[in-house]
């Protein structure tokens, strides 16, 4: 009989980020999760500031807060949030199609060396990433010019 009990061996939250030498698509998932959580965090800060300052404290406090957020640190933060939205949105669009079974290709009898549907659709993922980079660069030019 076994004397000791089996030892738990779950990777836990670390398993979301890195569990081994996996390919690109797994990290697209990780980045989607990170940008999602970042955007949620920003959302709650934004809602709180806007609702309390605008609705409750009124114009004077509002102007002060807006001026406070003009500092370049916050501008960089705003750009990061914008970039996170661009990635999350475009990857999300890809996920909408692929999780409904479109843009994935048909089941094929497996013949070695195997190429699963995600690897066969690697060009789509790369195209999406390229589009993200282009959009992020375009927005960066606007922010760098001193934006509003």
């Amino acid at each position, binding site marked *: 009989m076994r004397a000791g009990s089996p030892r738990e061996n779950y990777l836990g939250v670390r398993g979301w980020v890195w569990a081994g030498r996996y390919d690109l698509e797994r990290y697209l998932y990780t980045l989607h999760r990170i940008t999602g959580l970042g955007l949620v965090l920003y959302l709650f800060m934004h809602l709180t500031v806007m*609702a309390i300052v605008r609705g409750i404290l009124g114009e004077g406090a509002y102007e002060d807060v807006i001026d406070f957020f003009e500092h370049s640190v916050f501008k960089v933060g705003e750009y990061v949030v914008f970039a996170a939205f661009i990635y999350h949105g475009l990857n999300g669009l890809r996920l909408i199609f692929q999780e409904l079974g479109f843009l994935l290709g048909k089941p094929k009898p497996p013949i070695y060396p195997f190429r699963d549907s995600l690897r066969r659709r690697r060009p789509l993922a790369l195209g999406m990433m390229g589009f993200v980079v282009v959009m992020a660069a375009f927005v960066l030019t606007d922010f760098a010019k001193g934006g*509003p």
Partner: protein
Amino acid sequence: MRDTYLWLLQLVTGSLIIVFLAVHMVMMHLDNIVGFFGGHIDEPSFWSSMIDRATKGWWLTFYISFLALVLYHALYGLRGIVLEVTPSGRTERVVTGMIWAVGLGAFALGVYAPVHLFTR
């Protein structure tokens, strides 16, 4: 059955948010594009432009529906992540309840300010 609809709504709100948030971002940050479309807004973060927007029914509707979409999408995603790390069973109901509470609270908070300005 319900879970399928909740998930589908996540996709629907996601696609709508891409449009709504793009409009919001363009308005807030990218004056060049607004200018390209022939419109012109004074510095959108000024109090005066904000009041201007809050009093136009169009913008008010836009912001309130935008808030609803974003809160649903964000909280459904957050709920999924929290359910993955909490043990199952009773905690699932507790988590869902808390998410609902946060959502309704945030919606009320977010709607109060523009409605208050609109009816002032």
